[in-house]
């Protein structure tokens, strides 16, 4: 059956897109979480609200915003096209951006809370001992906040894997190119291919159970020790 191939292609694409999106969301989420936890500047609360917005906005609305921003007529999309000849719309890279934006608050929120829970006096003690601010971050702050951040990253990966609305708006549903697992499920059901849909649903459920098992293995205790 030709339809069955789409399952494994979609799985590989989904893992690639969700993996890269999680890396993007983790790096930017940890950095902004730290800045908002430690920094004191006007507009901090407004910024926090704006950065949390992708979590509560309907994914289609978010996808529309991204289309407006990244499209050829968009501020960023137009510049990318003119400067580098890059077009993100209807590309798998576009799907990565969409999934990363949706997953970002799931890293950023717990990261900020985890950084705020680290006793500032420990960082001061490390500085007095002659350790630079950057080294203090990697030796004290990050190891102590790691548990909370890791929980956020796993949630972000799960969310990126299940991303549907924003991805469909930005990247469309091109089999083998931008058709991820969750989109393929929808397409299969629409086309009446029940056997393909069954396999897709089975695969995505298995992957999600693996993520949860990994979370249980990494979570409290084991991580805190080191």
């Amino acid at each position, binding site marked *: 059956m030709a339809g069955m191939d789409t399952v494994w292609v979609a799985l590989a694409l989904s893992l690639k897109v969700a993996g890269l999106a999680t890396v993007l969301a983790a790096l930017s989420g940890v950095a902004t979480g730290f800045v908002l936890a430690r920094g004191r500047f006007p507009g901090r609360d407004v910024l926090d609200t704006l950065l949390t917005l992708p979590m509560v906005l309907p994914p289609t609305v978010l996808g529309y915003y991204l289309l407006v921003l990244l499209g050829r007529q968009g501020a960023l999309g137009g510049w990318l096209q003119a400067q580098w000849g890059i077009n993100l719309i209807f590309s798998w890279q576009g799907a990565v951006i969409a999934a990363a934006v949706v997953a970002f608050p799931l890293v950023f929120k717990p990261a900020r809370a985890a950084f705020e829970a680290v006793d500032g006096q420990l960082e001061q003690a490390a*500085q*007095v001992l002659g350790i630079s601010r950057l080294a203090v971050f990697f*030796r004290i702050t990050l190891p102590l906040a790691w548990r909370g951040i890791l929980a956020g990253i796993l949630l972000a990966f799960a969310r990126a894997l299940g991303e549907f609305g924003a991805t469909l708006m930005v990247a469309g549903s091109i089999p083998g190119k931008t058709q991820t697992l969750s989109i393929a499920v929808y397409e299969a059901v629409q086309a009446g291919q029940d056997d393909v849909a069954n396999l897709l649903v089975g695969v995505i459920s298995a992957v999600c159970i693996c993520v949860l098992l990994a979370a249980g293995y990494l979570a409290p205790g084991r991580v805190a020790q080191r």
Partner: protein
Amino acid sequence: MLDIAIQKTLHTGKRRFELNVQLQSASQHTVLFGQSGAGKSLTLKAIAGLMTPDSGHIRLGGRLLFSQPGGVNLTPQARQLGYLFQDYALFPHLTVRQNVAFGLVHGWLNPRTRAQHDEVEHWLYTFGLAAMAQQLPGELSGGQRQRVALARALVAKPGALLLDEPFAALDPALRHDMRQTLLALLAQVQIPLVLITHDEQDVALFGQQVFELRDGQAHAANLATFPEAPPRHD
């Protein structure tokens, strides 16, 4: 030895606190005495570089650490001081040995759990911590934690030792022991000391020169007026 003239205005909510400390001490060991809220901890933080005054200067052991008119403000790292926090501020994710070795390793990685360093082993042995070198701070008693904090501060050979209420968190028996430990240490190691306390007995034991802080201002105090001045060790 210690020359401070600093001003700082702090706002917390509607409250306003003026710190205006001027003091000069020629002695090796200086004690700042006062009730909580008098500005002792703020003054100590200013010496360590953890709080930047609005104006003034700080000189310790012949080094200019801060001068607002002169545009000098050394980072906490560059001041090379030992600071003993009131609740010790031990790193909870690192073993006793890693805590003590912390200031000797300057890169982005913490000291290895098994790495042995002569200076570290010396202080672990001196303070009776060798047997618990692989334990985490959470598993130690209050007195042991304080000795770890002291060892951690001394390993990097600081130019001066700043002590924030070092005995306040200990029960009376332990307090006596730790005072003796610190007195014995000071008899061995020649190091400028600034100690802040609200306990008059600390003044009598450790002060060579005493200042009393009240409402953010320092007043020279007479050591003889503090009770139980014991025989001095120097």
